[in-house]
């Protein structure tokens, strides 16, 4: 079975631009979470979505938004990019709200110049 997939693998954006990152969960998984990992630090929780509804949000500004589609894939959107948004963005999926094992994708490396 395919694991969690993310696209693109890498991208470079300029300050002030907008970016959309995509994630496809493991088949059968209905929950998707997003994490930001700045170089040299542990991942930080951004969002969790389950059955297309937001179930949790971390301490991130409103420039960050996300959504989940009927096929359980998800998009993370970041507006008005700042240099500090440069990071590895990780997507994780799990069966549902009763499952606490999260399976991570390879991540999208975002560089803001």
């Amino acid at each position, binding site marked *: 079975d395919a694991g969690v997939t993310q696209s693109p693998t890498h991208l470079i954006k300029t300050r002030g631009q907008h970016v959309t990152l995509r994630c496809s969960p493991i088949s059968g998984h209905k929950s998707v979470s997003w994490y930001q990992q700045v170089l040299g630090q542990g991942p930080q929780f951004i969002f969790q979505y389950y059955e297309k509804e937001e179930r949790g949000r*971390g301490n991130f500004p409103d420039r960050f938004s996300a959504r989940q589609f009927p096929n359980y894939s998800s998009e993370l959107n970041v507006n008005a990019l700042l240099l500090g948004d440069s990071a590895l963005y990780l997507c994780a999926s799990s069966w549902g709200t009763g499952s606490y094992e*999260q399976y991570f994708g390879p991540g999208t490396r975002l560089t803001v110049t």
Partner: protein
Amino acid sequence: AQSVTQLDSQVPVFEEAPVELRCNYSSSVSVYLFWYVQYPNQGLQLLLKYLSGSTLVKGINGFEAEFNKSQTSFHLRKPSVHISDTAEYFCAVTSPYQGAQKLVFGQGTRLTINP
């Protein structure tokens, strides 16, 4: 709210030596605990988890961890390491009482295996 402290940012060991990576957590409610490994330029791979039951948990690649509630610790151990174990290791905590399935991670421990 939960927090995780990984007591060592870097741990160098020789191949075939034992290793322990230390993790302490803070929480006012019951927690679930995890160890993840991250190889260079990759995502996170689940090594092992503690949800309930036996406090000694065995994971993949010969790793094990012991949950100690009184000391709020969840240290990771391996009796004999290999070069391929070189990676970043993250301890994480979550709680079934917080609503979202939010994992709180430590800062990571870089394990370097020397031949």
